[in-house]
């Protein structure tokens, strides 16, 4: 169906040659790339709602002290009470308000996941970019290394490290570092693949002919064209990291008392799942909600940033 396509030379220039010229380029007005991305993202209704829900959740948990009467350490007189107006998520057997605990747990879990995303994206991008850009022997060696680490189940490595590093103390920062040490592998692979194909593009050749340095080519020509996939994958890492951290904490090798995490709360609640189900339900639901909203945001970003997945409305 190449026939429907009318490539406009000016559009190609404006968007960078990495973009495929598709039926979308029938646009009458010319829009800047960022406006186009924003418009496409806003069209993804679920993604927009998810972003709002996620941000509200983060803000609520970050500023829990300012709007909620209890903290995670407050001991009330209400023991093992079900959800009520006073305690929307109920209380545990020692009288802690579960909402306060969930807010505290969500704060730790989200911050750990964000830290993991930032660290692993930065490292993975650099690693993948170098590997893909230079190619050849260095690339083979670097990617074999990644493949090797992937031969061992990452959860096993996490458990091994979580049990041993820093004496298994369960400090959130340490857990974030441990998670990040494995999360960059996927990003490195993706960026490497992207750079491998991008560096063969004509405009890179053109830049090289003009005498651009490798550094300039990487930062001015390749990286801007990889921004889309980098952002999308960073989002996915946040969701994966939340699930990994809570799993690790659930198993007892992640975040530990006195700090808290949603995974830890589920582990505590599981024993009471049949007698006091709220202790088990709420923390788990919050994990699902956070992961789900992030995944939807990631999906919206992918649609917005990846023009090849343009959808034609039926």
């Amino acid at each position, binding site marked *: *169906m190449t026939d*429907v396509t*009318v490539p*406009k030379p000016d559009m190609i220039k404006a968007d960078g040659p990495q973009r495929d010229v598709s039926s979308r380029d*029938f646009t*009458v007005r010319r829009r800047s790339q960022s406006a186009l991305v924003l418009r496409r993202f806003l*069209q993804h209704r679920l993604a927009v709602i998810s972003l709002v829900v996620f941000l509200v959740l983060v803000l609520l948990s970050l500023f829990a002290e300012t709007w909620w009467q209890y903290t995670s350490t407050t001991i009330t007189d209400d023991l093992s009470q079900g959800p009520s107006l006073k305690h929307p998520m109920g209380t545990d057997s020692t009288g802690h308000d579960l909402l306060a605990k969930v807010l505290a747990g969500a704060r730790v879990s989200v911050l750990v996941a964000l830290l993991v995303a930032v660290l692993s994206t930065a490292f993975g991008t650099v690693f993948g970019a170098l590997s893909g850009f230079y190619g050849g022997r260095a690339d083979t060696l670097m990617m074999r290394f990644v493949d090797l680490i992937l031969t061992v189940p990452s959860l096993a490595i996490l458990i091994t490290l979580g049990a041993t590093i820093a004496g298994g103390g369960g400090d959130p920062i340490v857990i974030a570092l441990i998670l990040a040490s494995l999360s960059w592998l996927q990003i490195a692979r993706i960026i490497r693949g992207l750079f491998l194909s991008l560096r063969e593009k004509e405009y890179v050749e053109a830049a090289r002919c003009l005498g651009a340095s490798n550094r300039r080519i990487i930062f001015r020509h390749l990286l801007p064209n990889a921004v889309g996939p980098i952002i999308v994958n960073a989002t996915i890492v946040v969701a994966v990291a939340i699930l990994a951290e809570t799993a690790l904490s659930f198993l007892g090798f992640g975040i530990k008392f006195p700090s808290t995490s949603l995974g830890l709360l589920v582990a505590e609640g599981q024993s009471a799942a049949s007698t006091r189900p709220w202790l088990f339900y709420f923390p788990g639901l919050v994990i699902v909600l956070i992961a789900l909203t992030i995944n939807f945001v990631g999906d919206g970003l992918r649609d917005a940033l990846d023009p090849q997945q343009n959808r034609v*409305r*039926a």
Partner: protein
Amino acid sequence: MTLTDSPGTAGTAAGVKPVLEVRDLSVSFPTDDGLVQAVRGVSYRLMPREVLGIVGESGSGKSVTSLAIMGLLPRTARIAGSACLGDQELIGAPYSTMQHLRGRRISMVFQDPISSLNPVYSIGWQLAEAVRAHHDVSKQAAADRAVDLLQLVGIPNAKERASNYPHEFSGGMRQRVVIAIAIANDPEVLIADEPTTALDVTVQAQILETLDLARRETNAAMVLITHDLGVVAGVADRVLVMYAGKPVETGTVDEIYYSSRMPYTLGLLASLPRLDDRKGGALRPIPGSPPSLLNLAPGCPFSPRCTYRGDVCDEQEPELLEVAPGGHRAACHFSDQLEQRREAPVLETDATLQEELA
């Protein structure tokens, strides 16, 4: 399954019914930005054994027209109008009906032979599949027929090559296989959609020859879609020039090449490189680019690029009207005035070329 109709001179004998008649076909695609009108009313008749060349730039709607006839457009496409294969209406026909027509009575050769064949099956298998789709024959018989067809389209060692996979063939060879698939069931109509565009210049002529051979072997009528006027000149009986989703001129090859009445066709002809040009002479492209088919402005879509433009052109889109008896039609407000313009015959170029190559 060869045609028994009296052959006669293609398209002129009275009483001969067209094998394919397209009437007012239009296709549009809904997109995020609005409706893209890819085809805006195409009509033509294809007589038995006739070769119709459809010429136009990419985006002129020539491929979409053919895909609509074959029923191969995506579900989002909105199709209106009619296309009759004999007495059978094709537009809007259910899959089960189309299934029995496609590959048996009407076949298509696609532009890109590299991606047209399924990479995981041998070419012999894919050919035999085409045979067995319409004939209840044994696997062995279908395989034998596949080898015969491969031989016919000029694949050396057909018997051995049949068990090879598409990736083991060159682009030209793959296009021969695609042609073999298209004629496997002796169709009445063969549509070739830019069959040589994706190929090396050196094999283009061979593929055109193979296509012609295949057409004569099966007595099929052919629609040859191309953007190359040179290709059409050698093969076609009649030509349909398309611009912005509409036919803008139609007539015999001679009428189009020697007495065109449409500035766009004249521009296309003038843009062909010629051997009698003085050395170092630049190519003469048509200035500007084709219009966006989204929110098409009123008036003649070619007028922004047209040297003969008048005020009326920006207000009213010209209709395809007869300009000479015998079916030469053109869509231009000034087609009468263009009659005096005698373009230097382009075919001379080919003649000189052939002389020089001889």
